[in-house]
């Protein structure tokens, strides 16, 4: 167990180093001029000398490997740099944005997991029925629906047309942070969460369906049926345990898609989360923020995959036996 965690931590460290190098190479070769994105529109008003000073202050005149080492050193000391567009430390922004994003992602993750699992079971238990076909085609259609377009439709119908929910943001415009009530916050969450979770149901439902069909065709189910077990009881005793672990671990491993969906959804709903920040950073040439969020997303996805693996090791006894044989 401890060995497992240590091995995974080592993997994360090497992954982070590799990703930081890769993303640094990508970003530093961009045609975007960091000085210009720092100064903004008044770039013409600074003299070449001032410009040189800024470049020297940031270390832009040094060689690329040197710049990278300086950045890595700073990151190790917990300093991700300062964002150019928000004029705040990157770590502060990430923390603030992530706390907004995690609410959105967490709720939709739970909802899509629960409903996807249930839909998958319903479809798989009634294979070939109309219900199964309906769920299957729903999942396939949802898998090819662009998330942002779906969000736009929801906005059009429920916010602009029916006026049930606000059009965007995480709280009413113009109100102070302390005044926002929980109800207001929830109201702003409904549509983004719906966008993320209605689409997110698809993959988990299809996976669960396939698994349960596989289980239902196994020998032990045939034997249980021969003993006279049927319906819910059969499922509860022999089906659920066999399909729940892979489904849960698949759902943990889908953090990457969740993050990608959140980026698009936050953009549509102008929800002030991490995804919107990375889009702004990319469009505004804010290199420190872009790199910071990239590294953070790696950690986020890694945690998901780690949980998925951990579940197997901790819960599934078969994995333990295998491990001792290694």
């Amino acid at each position, binding site marked *: 167990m401890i060995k497992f965690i240590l091995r995974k931590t080592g993997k994360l460290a090497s992954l982070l180093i590799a990703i930081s190098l890769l993303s640094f190479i990508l970003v530093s070769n961009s045609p975007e001029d960091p000085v210009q994105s720092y100064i903004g529109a008044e770039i013409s008003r600074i003299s070449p000398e001032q410009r040189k000073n800024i470049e020297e202050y940031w270390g832009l005149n040094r060689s690329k490997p040197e710049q990278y080492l300086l950045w890595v050193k700073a990151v190790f000391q917990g300093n991700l740099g300062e964002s150019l567009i928000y004029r705040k430390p990157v770590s502060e922004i990430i923390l603030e944005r992530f706390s907004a994003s995690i609410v959105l992602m967490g709720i939709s993750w739970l909802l899509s997991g629960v409903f996807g699992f249930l839909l998958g079971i319903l479809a798989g238990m009634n294979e070939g029925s109309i219900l199964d076909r309906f769920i299957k085609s729903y999942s*396939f259609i949802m898998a090819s629906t*662009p998330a942002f377009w779906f969000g736009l439709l929801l906005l059009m119908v429920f916010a602009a047309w029916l006026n049930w929910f606000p059009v965007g943001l995480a709280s009413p415009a113009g109100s102070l942070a302390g005044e926002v009530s929980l109800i207001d916050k929830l109201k702003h969450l409904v549509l983004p969460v719906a966008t993320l979770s209605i689409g997110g149901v698809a993959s988990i439902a299809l996976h669960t369906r396939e698994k349960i069909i596989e289980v239902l*065709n196994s020998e032990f189910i045939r034997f249980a049926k021969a003993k006279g077990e049927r319906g819910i009881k059969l499922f509860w005793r022999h089906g659920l345990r066999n399909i729940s672990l892979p489904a849960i671990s698949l759902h943990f491993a889908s953090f990457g898609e969740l993050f990608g969906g959140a980026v698009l959804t936050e953009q*549509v709903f102008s929800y002030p989360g991490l995804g919107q920040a990375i*889009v702004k950073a990319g469009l505004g040439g804010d290199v420190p923020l*872009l790199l910071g969020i990239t590294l953070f997303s790696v950690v986020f996805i890694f945690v998901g995959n780690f949980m998925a693996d951990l579940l197997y090791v901790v819960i599934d006894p078969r994995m333990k036996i295998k491990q001792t044989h290694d």
Partner: protein
Amino acid sequence: MTELISKYLPLKRSEKYNRRKRALATSIIGALILLALVISGFFIGTDGLVVNFEAANNAPSLQHPFGTDWLGRDMFVRTVKGLTLSFWVGLLAAFISALIALLLSLLLVLNKTLDSLVTGLIDLFLALPHIVTLILISFMLGGGLKGVVIALALTHWPRLARLLRAEIMQIKNTEYITVSRNMGKSWYWIARHHILPHLIPQLIIGFILTFPHAILHEASITFLGFGLSSDKPAIGVILSEAMGYLSSGMWWLALFPGLMLLLMVAVFDSLGRNLRKVFDPFKGQKG
């Protein structure tokens, strides 16, 4: 073996129709739809794209089936042009990434150190969300058509490469490879004559299934503002423009282009899945 067969061929399945024939028919229909789309994209004139303020903000009618935007441009023409563009971008990106996946996975046969490098690279790319990688790459390349194609090609190969590697791993342990090896054939020869032919069906299906992903990601990245420039008739551009007209009640701006995109992606997806049923029935007919 009997256990395997009963695992993959559930007894419940009705025998009324031939699944293979049905899959073939569905794929032909799908291919025809896509062909019609691309060809109509060629032949449709650009007359509808001319700015015409007299016809601005029209709701869908017989003359303009998808309505017109605030500049009087016909949304149907814009949508079809956008889909054609998406198709070519997706085709190019999927082709390049299938090529990358094939070449990198074939390294498994030739050299062990190189292969572990490839595995590391696959892990590296899968450790980042697609969208973030796309943003980073198109940030470096400064957006535009070239940037989008390169970014899409570089982000979509790992999944296919993984599939191909698993396949190669299986083939590599078969007897005829050992025999061939004992007869003094080089790995390069074996890769070309024994392994590559085995990979072709997987590769083609993987290529087609990469397509919908690439198209969706192209639209997403353009929607976010990193992809194609706003003067191009791309679905992402149309939808991000439509975002500004949400509260004006012009529902047709967003509904139809997105729906058509969804249709195209879904057709591609079903084409890929049906072709897998035909070419790789053992695995493909499970679902």
